């Protein structure tokens, strides 16, 4: 993902940099990032917080693996209807989300990530 930023040459204002606990940087579309209500508030709050000014957000409590997964989810969510989010949550609970891997629209979550991902989702209000 990091390397993508160079190729795409998007306008800087349309992009946002998310930095994981280990210091990995993910540059993604603002539109995608704003799937998270928390990030949306960060970037749109009327006061000029550091995040708004620099266009980057550091998450000292989110690991690279999880953040990557989250970014993937952002794009996925942007593309498919919010309807699927519920489906995913149900799958996470049951713990066999790969059962329907035949469907292309499904968002694949590795079982070992589920808990951490859920906590991050709560934090990010996604």
């Amino acid at each position: 993902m990091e390397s993508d930023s160079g190729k795409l040459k998007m306008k800087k204002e349309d992009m946002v940099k998310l930095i994981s606990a280990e210091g990995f940087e993910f540059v993604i579309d603002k539109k995608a990032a704003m799937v998270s209500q928390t990030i949306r508030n960060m970037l749109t709050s009327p006061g000029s917080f550091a995040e708004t000014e620099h266009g980057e957000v550091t998450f000292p409590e989110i690991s690279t693996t999880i953040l990557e997964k989250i970014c993937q989810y952002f794009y996925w969510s942007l593309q498919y209807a919010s309807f699927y989010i519920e489906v995913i949550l149900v799958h996470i609970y049951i713990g066999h989300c790969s059962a329907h891997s035949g469907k292309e629209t499904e968002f694949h979550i590795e079982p070992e990530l589920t808990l951490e991902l859920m906590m991050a989702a709560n934090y990010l209000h996604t």
Partner: protein
Amino acid sequence: MNSNQKKRNFQIEAFKHKVVVDPKYAEKTWKILEHAIHEIYNHNASGLSFEELYRNAYNMVLHKFGEKLYSGLVSTMTFHLQEMAKTIEAAQGGSFLEELNRKWTDHNKALQMIRDILMYMDRTFIPSTHKTPVHELGLNLWRDNVIHSSKIQMRLLNTLLELILRERTGEVINRGLMRNIIKMLMDLGPSVYQEDFEKPFLEVSADFYRAESQEFIECCDCGDYLKKAERRLNEEIERVSQYLDTKSESKITNVVEKEMIASHMLRLVHMENSGLVNMLIDDKYDDLGRMYSLFRRVPEGLPTIRDVMTTHLRETGKQLVTDPEKLKDPVEFVQSLLNEKDKYDKVINKAFSNDKTFQNALNSSFEYFINLNPRSPEFISLFVDEKLRKGLKGVSEEDVETILDKVMMLFRYLQEKDVFEKYYKQHLAKRLLSGKTVSDDAERSLIVKLKTECGYQFTSKLEGMFTDMKTSQDTMQGFYSNYGPELGDGPTLVVQVLTTGSWPTQPSVTCNLPAEMSALCEKFRSYYLGTHTGRRLSWQTNMGTADLKATFGKGQKHELNVSTYQMCVLMLFNNADRLRYKEIEQATEIPSSDLRRCLQSLALVKGKNVLRKEPMSKDIAEDDTFVVNDKFSSKFYKVKIGTVVAQKESEPEKQETRQRVEEDRKPQIEAAIVRIMKSRRVLDHNNIIAEVTKQLQSRFLANPGEIKKRIESLIEREFLERDSADRKMYRYLA
């Protein structure tokens, strides 16, 4: 499945916050947040990390320090708001509102930011503990610490009211600022807006307009006052749209309406020289329209206008129908009624937006005063007569229709439609017999209108008259094709055979016709009775006309158009030079009143005096002598000698017609009583009267006394009987 096994490997601490052991953790975290809030209020937020603050608040809530976070927020915010209040209080004069507005903007922005970073608390802690959400909390604190601070509350209200007063007196104020401040009050909740602004605002406005309207009404005329009131009303509406809550519009307009219109309504309407009546008289459509639209806003407003209009209308109408000048000329009389109707139709159309209730008031007023004059039916019929005789010459078909429609409208107002029918019949008969009607189409069109209005029964006789005219034409053709050759050069006879009953014929004495005429008449009689057996012909010499060729002393020739009576008189002079009144009367046997009238028109009308009377005087006396006026001259070859007929009925004739109408009504009333009793069998007196009146309404207004007489007559003839127990009840006897 793999996942099941792997689950055991999960660690609860996957999310990497430290397990809280530090007892000062909460204190420390809060300090960070508190500091951030201070910085936000000091416009210093640019160095802060949203993520860090959000995370701290998140963790505090997560670790059950929500309560601490919340109360900390309340006290910190309260502190800042109190600081703000002090600055605002310190602002001098005009800058007060500006300062307040500035601080409000600041607070709003800060509040937004604080809410964003404390979003997690808003989402989880607040709903579960039923506390006030951050944004609302911020507004409440602002309300309690700033707006309701003792030094601000009254000052704010007074400043706002002062500004509005200044605007009302014509000054320009900063509406943008007003809008912001009012918006602030509205944001703080409807109760704040209402209690802290709207209520006092309405009170002050009421006082203002009470005083102002008092001043206006003393010095303005009605039209000006209404203009001012309308302007004020529009100003208030505009003010609301500019910077007040839209819900205030009805309230403030109510105040203006009440103070400026409702409390002065009667005085305005009755204002001398400029009130409603004057507006009506002068056709002031604008003023009337304004009055209508303003008064419509207040209860009892429109009824007030309507009542005054009705009273005025009845008053003027009454004057109109009883004005002795107008009574002299029926056409003028009806025309002025029509003008009056047109005038008010226009007023209602232009100023009262065609309000149905006003139209009804207009109609009932007309109905009221038209029937005040018992001669209205006669005059309306005369008006039609005049129009159909000559008034409609050269007028387009549409205009004819319009005039006829207007007449019908007046007709509708009449209560005694049967009287109209009577006169109409007479006038129509005259028109038809003298061939004076301008347009057959117009005649028929009016009859159709009457038919739609009153039904077949009403017009059947009128239509019979038309039929008679038509058949008579055919009969005459038949007569002449049979006898034409043997009649030679003698006089020409045109007979109209009239069905008895259809025509308003009066039994009259047939006068002595000149010999050549009576011979012709006999021929016709035998022809007619030959084709129609079982009929009887009697001559109505009082209704005919004749054309005479006359040669006067100096050889001047004229064609004289005269009535049958006049013809009889003139023909006598073929055999005599001078005749005495008595001789004429004996020879012709014309009834004396008719003879006098006929001689009058022959001898005393200037320019048409084919006879000369000796001695010369204005009246016909029994011993007068008549000679042919040799010096008669006229520029026209044809001379029409009208009988001196009273256009209008004279007093005795009127009485007679009235009596005939009353006579005609009797069987109608009786028929109605019998119809009703037949279906009801038993009914009490009052109900009979009510029902009879209702049934006959379309023809005339039945007089209760007359109905009573009819009931009695029916009892005598044993159609009805009185109930033996209850004398007020009647019983139908089959």
